[in-house]
């Protein structure tokens, strides 16, 4: 089995975990508060993007699905902005929503009007994803500040989710910066970076699933983290 085939097989880990997450969320759906339903919606969107990107990769004449990297960046941004602004950060920090919305509009405009949506792999740059990741990392830093400044009842949950989001998106910033290199270089050289990214992403999904499961299993308990 070649590295490429092995990697393709290994990449199925992420959609499998997402399917597990969506099933878990739907199973407990009636017991979930809006916060956990928001997490479930994110997992659902991520699964949809994953399936669409694989399908697009098969049928596209360019033989690449890189546009979905930018789209997933936008979905990540919307998820994190919603989660942090409405559930984790205090009302006094709602102003963060404005720069996040501005970045969102900027990236959408860039995708629609300035960037070539379906560019060839050798000229692809994922600066829009990079910017989205940076905004997400800023959110996580604000969340850490909130955790250090105030005693929060749900501090365990916040700590868990915030850490997983920070780890994944901080590493993803570096990977987005080197996206062109990582896409076009020999897979045997860059496979470790993609594996690391996949593991961190799967870890983040698993933590979200665990949180949803905890909430569904014991809704009263999760109300306090």
């Amino acid at each position: 089995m070649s590295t490429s085939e092995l990697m393709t097989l290994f990449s199925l880990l992420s959609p499998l975990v997402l399917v597990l997450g969506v099933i878990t969320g739907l199973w407990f759906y009636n017991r979930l508060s809006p916060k956990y339903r928001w997490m479930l919606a994110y997992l659902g969107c991520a699964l949809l993007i994953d399936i669409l990107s694989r399908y697009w990769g098969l049928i596209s004449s360019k033989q690449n699905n890189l546009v979905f990297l930018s789209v997933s960046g936008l979905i990540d941004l919307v998820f994190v902005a919603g989660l942090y602004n409405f559930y984790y950060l205090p009302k006094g920090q709602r102003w963060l929503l404005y720069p996040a919305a501005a970045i969102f509009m900027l990236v959408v405009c860039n995708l629609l009007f300035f960037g070539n949506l379906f560019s060839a792999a050798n000229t692809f740059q994922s600066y829009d994803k990079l910017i989205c990741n940076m905004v997400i990392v800023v959110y996580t830093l604000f969340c850490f500040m909130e955790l250090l400044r105030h005693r929060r009842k749900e501090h365990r949950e916040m700590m868990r989710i915030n850490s997983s989001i920070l780890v994944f998106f901080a590493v993803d910033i570096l990977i987005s910066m080197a996206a062109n290199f990582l896409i076009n270089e020999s897979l045997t050289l860059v496979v470790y970076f993609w594996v690391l990214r996949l593991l961190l992403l799967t870890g983040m999904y698993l933590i979200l699933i665990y949180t949803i499961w905890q909430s569904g299993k014991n809704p009263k308990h999760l109300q306090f983290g």
Partner: protein
Amino acid sequence: MAEWQKPETLAIWLSIGVGFVLLLITSMIIFTRFYIQRMLREEQERAQLKLDYQKDLLNDSVRVQERERNRIAADLHDGLISRLNVLLLAMHTPQHTEVAPPVLLKESIGVARRISHDLSPPLLEETDLAELISDFVMPLKAAFSVEIDLRQEKPPVIHSETKLQIFRIVQEVISNIIKHAQAKRISIYLRLSENRISIRIQDDGIGFDEKKSSGLGHKNIELRIQLLKGSCRFRSAPQKGTSFLMHLNNY
């Protein structure tokens, strides 16, 4: 191709970057986790201290109750019962008594009334706080130079229970002055407004060491202040008199 442009070099630098970021973030997460744990531990310790303090106060309240019972028992025994015994004796042997039974009876009624007033101030609902305190310190004017300075915008409506607790605090402070301070002058300042009560009681007595004071009287005052959700403090030093200050907001 320059050395730095080689894919292997780029991959190495990227690995270093990713490793550094992961290290930085891991340290940050560990630091935050330790900080939160410490915060929780301190909070727990504070809660435990508060619980211990509450337990102490509860113990003290029981002791205060017992002391009050003893005092009342002593008042009844030494004041009322002894007078009633003399009255009984006087009624059986009227020819040998120096004081006539009606006089003894009148004295006994007086003592009973004093004990009764001491247990519960008369007309508590109708009497305002300033009057209650004035009535209490009136008899002291023979032995002390008592000065009362009252300032109130209009007589505030104070719930009877609150009024009684404040009155008991004032009673305790003044009793302590009488018993221990060897004072000649007592000043009472009252500031009453719709949402704040401030009382200051000063004397020119021998004072006490604030650090060593933990008598039952003080505990009793603390207990009542806590019940009222107010605040109080004593300021004193040996030979420099004592000043007691209490505040009660939104009573």
